[in-house]
């Protein structure tokens, strides 16, 4: 029996050798390696001026400097017009992203897809890939080439989830077509895609309905390094608005009963199944000599929100509930940078989040960032940046630690191949 086990173990060796040969063979296909393996390391540290405003933190987060993440990318043109691509993340540290210790040492498949190229104007992609919504969403893992350490707020899933703002950028998609046309030196690219949407049950399992669909058009006019794009995404999402409704209902309840608002627990029945989320975006990227401008605007509307009549559950529940209504939130950012001596790039970035219904920001959040990056060569980026977060009209009932705060970040990103 033991020998059989040993045999089974050795049975995999030929496959392993085959994979290694594929990985390191130079020319099984005409010009391209069968598979390329490359990646990057991110080393980053931060110092936060005040108590974190989320999770009811009572102590200042410690200053840290640690190896955060290693990303390994696999890229293969494995057969004629077929391509495979994957991004695997190894979470060395704990503080960026999910803060729980359990995530230390975790491997995540961030992207994994196959693509068939029929022609330049038609490629078909299937698997798990970032929604091509906006210019930077599909590039959000490109830290070695970014000048900034933090992504614009609209791409920071962790930040948004911890503030219960809900994601504004569509989730990963599963099937799409894309391509490009050239018309009189105008390059016009398109993406159309469908995905699982963000409709999940209370255990975060996909409920297999309410799929999302979206498209993007990107135009590059015959001007050096100018790119303009517009994106649209829609899905039915019954639970997207839930935190707003619950928190606001609790606020109302607190005002009536005098009970403090401590944690978010669902107290309302389900909302209307017709709730629909529509997200529209516009983006611009322009390089003029050493000057670079980039910006994006995103507006997400949730329409047909209504609570199911709860009068048979409680006499008082409807007192705290919202009537049917539409919700809208807006994000935009502008980033201006200038490169000196081809290596030093100071930048300024303004992020604005407007959400009149949000229970934390109430109206707006502004983030001002001043930073700079230094590149001794194309594979290494050393960055430092200072952030100021300013909240708008904060609701009176929220705890004191929901306040403006500042952060200082420093990072090194190293690309290897």
């Amino acid at each position: 029996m033991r020998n059989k086990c040993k045999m089974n173990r050795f049975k995999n060796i030929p496959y392993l050798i085959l994979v290694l040969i594929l990985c390191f063979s130079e020319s099984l296909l005409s010009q391209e390696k069968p598979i390329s393996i490359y990646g990057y390391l991110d080393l980053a540290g931060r110092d936060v001026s005040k108590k974190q405003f989320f999770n009811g933190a009572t102590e200042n987060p410690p200053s840290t400097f640690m190896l955060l993440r290693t990303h390994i990318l696999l890229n293969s043109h494995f057969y004629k017009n077929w391509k495979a691509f994957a991004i695997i993340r190894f979470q060395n540290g704990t503080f960026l992203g999910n803060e729980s210790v359990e995530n230390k040492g975790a491997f995540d498949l961030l992207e994994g897809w196959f693509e068939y190229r029929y022609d330049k104007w038609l490629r078909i992609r299937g698997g798990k890939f970032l929604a091509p919504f906006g210019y930077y969403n599909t590039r959000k893992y490109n830290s070695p080439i970014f000048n900034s350490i933090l992504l614009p707020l609209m791409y920071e899933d962790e930040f948004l989830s911890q503030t219960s703002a809900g994601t504004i950028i569509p989730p990963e998609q599963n099937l799409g077509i894309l391509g490009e046309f050239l018309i009189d030196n105008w390059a016009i690219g398109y993406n159309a895609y469908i995905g699982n949407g963000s409709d999940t049950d209370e255990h975060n399992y996909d409920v297999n309905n309410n799929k999302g669909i979206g498209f993007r058009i990107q135009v590059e006019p015959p001007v050096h390094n100018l790119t303009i794009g517009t994106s649209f995404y829609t899905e039915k999402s019954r639970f997207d608005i839930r935190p707003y409704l619950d928190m606001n209902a609790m606020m109302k309840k607190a005002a009536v009963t005098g009970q403090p608002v401590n944690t978010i627990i669902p107290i309302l029945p389900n909302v209307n199944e017709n709730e629909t989320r529509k997200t529209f975006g516009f983006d611009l990227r322009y390089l003029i000599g050493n000057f670079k401008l980039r910006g994006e605007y995103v507006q997400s509307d949730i329409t047909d929100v209504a609570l199911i009549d709860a009068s048979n559950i409680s006499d008082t529940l409807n007192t705290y509930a919202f009537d049917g209504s539409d919700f809208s939130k807006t994000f935009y950012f502008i980033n201006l940078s200038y490169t000196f001596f081809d290596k030093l790039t100071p930048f300024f970035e303004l992020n604005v989040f407007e959400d009149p219904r949000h229970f934390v920001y109430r109206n707006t959040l502004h983030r001002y960032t001043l930073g700079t990056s230094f590149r001794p060569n194309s594979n290494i980026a050393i960055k430092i940046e200072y952030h100021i977060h300013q909240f708008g009209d904060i609701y009176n009932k929220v705890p004191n630690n929901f306040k403006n705060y500042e952060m200082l970040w420093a990072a090194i990103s190293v690309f290897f191949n």
Partner: protein
Amino acid sequence: MKNIKIYRIMIVIFLAFISTNNLYTQIVVIVNSKNPVTSLTLEELERIYTANVVRWESVNDGEEYITLSDYKNKSDVVERFFKTVTGLSHLKIRLEWIGKMLTGEIQHVPNKSATEKDVIEFIASNKGAIGFVNASMINEFPESVKVLKINEKNYTESDYPLR
């Protein structure tokens, strides 16, 4: 009188030097002789070197990949070529390539050569390769390397764009 003659001779030598130097400031774009492409526009060249186009569309129904040739070190020719063609510096164009790798658009960064001779050898041995060298190297081209016209202009013409 003698002084005037010396000045004249010096001016002639100087002008000859300038004109010779100008002849060698053109940059020529080269491909493998097996490649049927004979001419590219500056816009096409930009899309190739920014890796927005990764295949020779006119070769084997687009099955042939474009293999870019790059230089290890900075030089006047390298900086001038990338600025003219893409509007970007050598370092920034490398960042563009890394960005394309990180999104899966290309599989590796272009081959880096130390010298122009290395570039010529690389082009000579790779059917899908494209590169650029100073026009002064043209006498050293083997038969397996050919020069492309840019905007339908030969490098000897006065309005050749890569001067």
